[in-house]
């Protein structure tokens, strides 16, 4: 579907949101074997916007956590269009801590326009749930890789992307705010979203240049067997390397990775 001829940032935003693009569950089905889904945050509910569980990656148990948008209209409603509630983030955190306990690597598949924005979500502490996910992921003593497969919308995406390695699909986008939101706040005109998309530097190429991600996953074969096969091999190799590292060293390097993002000129003082 996606060609290499995409030039404008907003075209990528459209592609990242396009129905028919593989969703989290597609990745799980094609990369992971013997997946067992684990539900619930043990506090309040099960949030279907986040699908989590354990499966095998090349014969090795891994924890997989995916923000799921759904593949058809019925699924999209069931998964709340990939907009998680606090209980979704709390489920994700529970599964990450479980992975840490059993020494399993963690794969996060991120695809959301943002954490759900609603009354219940605020009542149950959306901000606190995301904050805790970010903080605990930073200190998780097991290797993690996050892949932004479509939309990486703000804190709701970052909550599952504080990983040792962060990869982005070629046409995925990653931003602090949607281009529409940005345009309506800055220029009081949501129709200037394409301009905002350009200014926000939200493409994979931008993220790579800014050091926010390690790699861009090409989309020429998106959704084909060969695409998943390459990604599976790549993940296996990455976890072999990360798994060889001492857990404390792993956490130290993860902190340094994020610590060094956007360090302004502080006038030579430390």
């Amino acid at each position, binding site marked *: 579907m996606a060609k290499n001829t995409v030039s404008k940032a907003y075209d990528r935003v459209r592609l990242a949101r396009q129905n028919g693009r593989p969703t989290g569950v597609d990745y799980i089905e094609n990369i992971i074997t013997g997946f067992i889904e684990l539900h619930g945050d043990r506090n309040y509910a099960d949030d279907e916007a986040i699908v989590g569980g354990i499966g095998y990656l090349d014969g090795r148990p891994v924890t997989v956590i995916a923000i799921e948008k759904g593949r058809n209209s019925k699924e999209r409603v069931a998964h709340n269009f990939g907009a998680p509630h606090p209980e979704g983030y709390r489920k994700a955190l529970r599964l990450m801590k479980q992975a840490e306990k059993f020494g399993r690597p963690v794969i996060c598949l991120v695809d959301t326009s943002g*954490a759900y*924005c*609603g*009354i219940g*979500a*605020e*009542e*149950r*502490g*959306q*901000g*606190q749930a*995301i*904050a*805790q996910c*970010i*903080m*605990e992921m*930073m*200190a998780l003593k097991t290797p993690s890789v996050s892949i932004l497969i479509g939309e990486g919308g*703000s*804190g709701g995406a*970052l*909550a599952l992307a*504080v990983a040792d390695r962060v990869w982005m699909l070629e046409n995925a986008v*990653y*931003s*602090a*705010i949607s281009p529409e939101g*940005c345009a309506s*706040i*800055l220029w009081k005109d949501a129709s200037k979203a394409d*301009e905002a998309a350009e*200014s*926000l*530097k*939200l493409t994979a190429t*931008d*993220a790579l240049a*800014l050091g*926010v991600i390690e790699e861009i996953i090409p989309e020429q074969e998106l959704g084909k067997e060969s695409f998943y096969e390459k990604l599976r091999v790549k993940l296996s190799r990455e976890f072999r390397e990360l798994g060889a590292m001492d857990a404390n060293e792993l956490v130290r390097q993860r*902190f340094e990775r*994020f*610590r060094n*993002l*956007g*360090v*302004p*000129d*502080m*006038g030579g*003082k430390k």
Partner: protein
Amino acid sequence: MPFIEFLFKPKNELEKGGRQSVQVASADENEPSKPCPNCRKMVPLSQLWANHNTCECGYHFRMNARQRINFICDADTFSEWDAGVTSRDILDFPGYMTKLENTRNACGESEAVVCGRAKIDGEDCCIFVMEPYFMMGSMGTVVGEKITRTFERAIELGLPVVGYTVSGGARMQEGILSLMQMAKTSGAVKRHSEAGLFYLTVITDPTTGGVTASFAMDGDVILAEPGALIGFAGPRVIEQTTRRKLPAGFQKAEFVLEHGFVDAIVPRSTQKATIAQLLKMHAGGERVG
């Protein structure tokens, strides 16, 4: 316009404390005063200052970072870190340089947070205070870096951190790098926590977005000011998304307390004493057992 009045000039609907237009009682002609958005009385400025910018009805007016530091720290104990550091236009974002320059000139601060070391009722601590009059306390790379450094210095010094938050969220003009400051600051908070050190947050009006979803909610103890708006998504966005009228008091500190996300609501009249007591309770060397 006198400086103090300029500081209090509402810049948007949110700052006025409500969306309805405020009908005010007749002002005292003899003394400059400002209307209280809650009880609608005119509050003489002298009375306002004497009560730490609160009205007798309990309404807490906004305070800038320097006012807070003067209010909460012991006299002449605050020494500032990384003063004067300014943001660069990393992404070449349209209008950002001009916006920064105008804000610096109008607000008098170089960025949206003031950090340093101080004593509160004799208790040594590190402190950061966000600045509502600098782009509504939005978090860009300078804010992220200054707060991260505050925690790193606190670890070196073995000191607690007291943090006052006020923020509209991530600084969109710094794009994805502003989002990354949530991870950076959270990592620093975690290290400070793992060193066994105490972190106290005081959430003030309004604290939303990326700051709520990171270091504001990471405190060992989380206090809030009366009436403060605390949330992840802003009320207007929620109203637009859900097409529902929001319940009365939604996202106010009292509502957030009721739902279990802050430890206590502490008015300014007892704030310094409460913070000092909590610092004393967490001071080293007096643990039993």
